[in-house]
């Protein structure tokens, strides 16, 4: 025969452990069912470099690109430190380059329009009448 105090402690232990297991299980199975996640708003700094344009290097094969923007995005806190990835393609071959705004070669030159680079492409792209250049800016 166990003493009554021991039985009570065992019962309490069982309840607590079961509660913990349920709580952990709920956390592990966390689902988002609510349409309302709160009324607070957070302002997200967004780089206003969306007029970035690509100037291709000269020659029959494009090996470098220079980026141009109407605003000095290196001098904008929302842009400084952002990563840029550029891909140039003629539909057959493509070349790419990356840089960080504020770090060479992505440092600002000129007084406007502001230019960055040149960036050297990973592979040369034969010049054609129509080429596509995509820029993806991440961060900062």
């Amino acid at each position, binding site marked *: 025969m166990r003493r009554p105090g021991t039985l009570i402690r065992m019962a309490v232990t069982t309840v607590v452990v079961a509660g913990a297991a349920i*709580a952990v299980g709920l956390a592990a199975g966390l689902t988002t069912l609510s349409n309302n996640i709160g009324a607070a708003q957070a302002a997200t700094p967004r780089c206003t470099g969306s007029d970035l344009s690509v100037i291709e290097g000269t020659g029959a094969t494009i090996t470098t690109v220079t980026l141009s923007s109407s605003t000095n995005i290196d001098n904008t806190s929302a842009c400084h430190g952002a990563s840029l990835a550029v891909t140039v393609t003629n539909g057959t071959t493509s070349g790419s380059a990356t840089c960080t705004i504020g770090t060479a070669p992505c440092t600002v030159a000129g007084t406007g329009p502001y230019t960055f680079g040149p960036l050297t492409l990973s592979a040369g792209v034969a010049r054609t009448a129509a080429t596509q250049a995509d820029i993806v800016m991440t961060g900062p």
Partner: protein
Amino acid sequence: MRRIGILLALSALLTLSTAAAASLSLTSQALTPIRNCILSGYPSTTTDVIDAMVEQNNPNTNYNNATNSVMSHSGNTNRRTYVEFLVADCVPAIPPTATIRSATLRLYATAVPAGTCRTDDVFAATSAWTETGITWNTQPTSNSTRTTYMQIGSTCTSNNAAGYVTGWNVTGDVQSYVSGSASDDGWMIRDDAESSATSYTATYEAKNGNSTTENPELIISYVDVP
């Protein structure tokens, strides 16, 4: 007592787990995709770009085969340049709903007006024309208000020597071409004050120059969503 200690520890752990779940946070980075379509007058056989010069002194002559577009102006020797980039030929095609962030017309000046600083205007052409058919007398219609302008000449602070000229922003026109609210008939470029007493000349490389370093270009920067 030891069991009580274990219970307390377990309870604390449970509290911490719950607190961690309650403070779940999400972080993200702004991702900005920007697309560029670059239309180029190279190779010269391309039909994506057409250009020609017209001359007042020879009003019925077609200068489609010229390797340079010469713009001079004095008396009745005015000359104009027409250039058209078929925006619809961008690959991939620019969606009609796209927002054009910038569109820059780039011509290479092989010679700039000497001893002066002139203003060269860009007007949107508003009717169709062809490279082989255009003359001074058959010029297409154009907007009465210029789209953009820049200054060029040896005494200017920029565009004062041979090179790609800067300053021709044609964003609004290209937005209209893409959305379909205007037809893409290109642009007419001329001196802001034609028929001047003194002759001044600016010379731009034409598509027929077949140059990989001085070819006419239109650079369009856009985003797929408004």
